[in-house]
């Protein structure tokens, strides 16, 4: 029986850092220096990327579809906002983790509802939870500020040194570092035996159960972890914008997130990150050209992406770059076929 060593070497091989990944992070850092006037929108992208990473953990690796991921984002956002507003925890980093933990608790509690049922049921249960929380936040407007949101949040400097500035420089580096750290963690998790067992569950829950994977416990664990990630991204949102209003729970936020992840591709961690970049850029691009009707063009892009097929689009888009690579690197340029999406 050589299956075991093969498997572990496969896991090790896929866990190794590839050059392209390093390039990715270097590019991300380079953006900070190349576009010093666009910190705010880049922070927005980083936050969205972290949020999408969170969804990728459950959708791409465990096959749980969710239309209510904003529930955890919102809880993280309000926790961070309330902590800053009432001076419970003033230091942003500690508050960030604390807010993430609040979301984690919620994730753990709701995971029992979510693991039941099939795709459509999960979709609606998660959506229902997010809507319920939105209604709660609206109902208890004396705590949450209702539709107007929390007003007057003032953030203390990070670690007592780095104050949030108007241009969003601190906020951007802060968010980027948080994203990177959490990305490393996620990378570690998905390449661990735990992560592999999740993939087994995604591909076939029955078979996974048959080979002894405790399916429900694994799903609860990853759902809880994803809630932590989403909570952190929500808390980052509040800390970097000093805002928290009801729309953090909104259906549109969850739905946009789904689009982001599907555009980028699921199940390889970078999908959410790249999807966030592409989606925000498209939005920025179209809404600059036509502030009133940009939604039409975004819609058109989505429709075209699906009709043409993502793999083909990538081939076309990369025709020129590949040509260049072939010329200079002298080796075969690769555009791989996308992994199958969980559906």
């Amino acid at each position, binding site marked *: 029986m050589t299956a075991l060593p093969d498997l572990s070497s496969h896991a090790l091989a896929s866990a190794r850092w*590839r050059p*392209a*990944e390093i*390039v*990715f992070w270097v*590019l991300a850092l380079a*953006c900070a220096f*190349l*576009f010093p*006037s*666009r910190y*705010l*929108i*880049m922070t*927005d992208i980083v936050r969205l990327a972290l949020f999408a990473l969170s969804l990728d953990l459950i959708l791409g690796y465990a096959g749980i579809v969710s239309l209510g991921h904003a529930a955890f984002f919102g809880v993280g956002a309000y926790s961070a906002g309330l902590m800053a507003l009432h001076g419970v925890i003033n230091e942003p980093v500690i508050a960030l983790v604390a807010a993430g933990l609040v979301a984690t608790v919620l994730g753990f509690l709701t995971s029992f509802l979510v693991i039941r049922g099939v795709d459509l049921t999960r979709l609606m249960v998660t959506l229902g939870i997010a809507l319920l929380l939105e209604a709660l936040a*609206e109902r208890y*407007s004396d705590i949450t500020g*209702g*539709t*107007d*949101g929390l*007003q007057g949040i003032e953030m203390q400097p990070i670690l007592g040194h780095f104050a949030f500035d*108007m*241009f*969003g420089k601190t906020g951007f580096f802060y968010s980027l570092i948080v994203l990177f750290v959490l990305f490393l963690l996620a990378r570690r998790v998905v390449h661990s035996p735990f992560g592999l067992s999740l993939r087994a569950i995604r591909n076939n829950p029955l078979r996974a159960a048959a080979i002894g994977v405790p399916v429900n416990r694994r799903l609860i664990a990853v759902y809880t972890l994803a809630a932590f990630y989403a909570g952190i991204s929500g808390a980052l*949102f509040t800390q970097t*914008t*000093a*805002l928290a*209003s009801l*729309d953090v729970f909104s259906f549109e936020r969850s739905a946009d997130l789904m689009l982001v992840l599907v555009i*980028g*591709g699921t199940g*390889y961690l*970078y*999908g959410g990150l*790249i999807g966030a*970049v*592409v989606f925000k*850029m*498209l939005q*920025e*691009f179209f*809404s600059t050209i036509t*502030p*009133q009707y*940009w*939604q039409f063009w975004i819609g058109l892009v989505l429709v075209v992406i699906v009709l043409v097929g*993502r*793999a083909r689009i*990538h081939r076309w*888009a*990369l025709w020129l*770059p590949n040509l260049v690579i072939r010329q200079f690197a002298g080796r075969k340029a*690769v*555009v*791989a*076929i*996308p*992994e199958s999406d969980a559906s």
Partner: protein
Amino acid sequence: MSIRSQILLAASAVAAVLAVAPAQAEDAVKIGLILPMTGGQASTGKQIDNAIKLYMQQHGDTVAGKKIEIILKDDGALPDKTKTAAQELIVNDKVNFIAGFGVTPAALAAAPLATQGKIPEVVMAAGTSIITERSPYIVRTSFTLAQSSTIIGDWAAKNGIKKVATLTSDYAPGNDALTFFKQNFTAGGGEIVEEVKVPLANPDFAPFLQRMKDAKPDAVFVFVPAGQGGNFMKQYAERGLDKAGIKVIGPGDVMDDDLLNGMGDAALGTVTAHLYSAAHPSAMNKEFVAAYKKAFNSRPGFMAVSGYDGIHLIYEALKKTGGKTDGDELIAAMKGMKWESPRGPISIDPETRDIVQNIYIRKVEKVDGELYNVEFATFEAVKDSGKTKK
């Protein structure tokens, strides 16, 4: 999906979009206009945008030797988008004014940026009292809900209305409207018999209206955001509240000129207090309404007038400073400015930087086959009592 291909794709997108540096014109004054152009508040944004276009057509795009350039951004009425847009406008486009702001949270989100950047923030829609207190650079040309709500409260108490049920949208402007109405109405001897706050995003008023009907008041005091008024009136009539002798009163948002005609005869007889009616009998307004109708094929509402006055204020301030764009000088120039607007005489309170205007009591009547808010009483130079009381 290979990571490298994705990265290349993403990188080219980033470079393409981020690197588009805004063109810098030297002798231009730039106005960053942030409005909800999409989403549920889009009609507010469109009216203001239209009015500004109209004003610039009429008055030219040069003031004091400088060319006026408008940069429009959509925030979908979401405060975080407002903030990002405002920051981008200030830092990258180097705008001299930020203006617009469809909802209160949006106006508040931009306030710290106005203060830090010393950039005048001209609020053209949002109507909560506190806004102008959040930054010394905020000026408002729309209205506050306290202005119209206190007036209608007084009017109702003096005109034989004893019992009122209230229906207000549950957010800051709604709560402002309710508080100030209640304060003046009960001080005048009236009684509130039922108080219902409806969620902001609310598809069907039927159950709430049934509550109103069962409370048997003399009148219903209503505040719902511009746009929902039509639904309210339709269902008010459907439920037979008009037949039951229950009147509708409120700040004029419900009877927005923009939508009034679509409401049908159910709206007849509704009494509201507001800053503007398309039927305002002045030569200037007639001309404004005609020009607006000609250009955009719809009737201007109070949001359009607020936008029209907002851009006028910016023009006049620039004339006063001789084209200089220092934030403090501009704000100083704006303070105390008085002018004749399509809505009547208005001015900017030098102390609060809020608008001082006439509030008219109007009744919906049919004029030439169309519904209009016909003004029949005027309260002159009303300040924002949300602040004067303090």
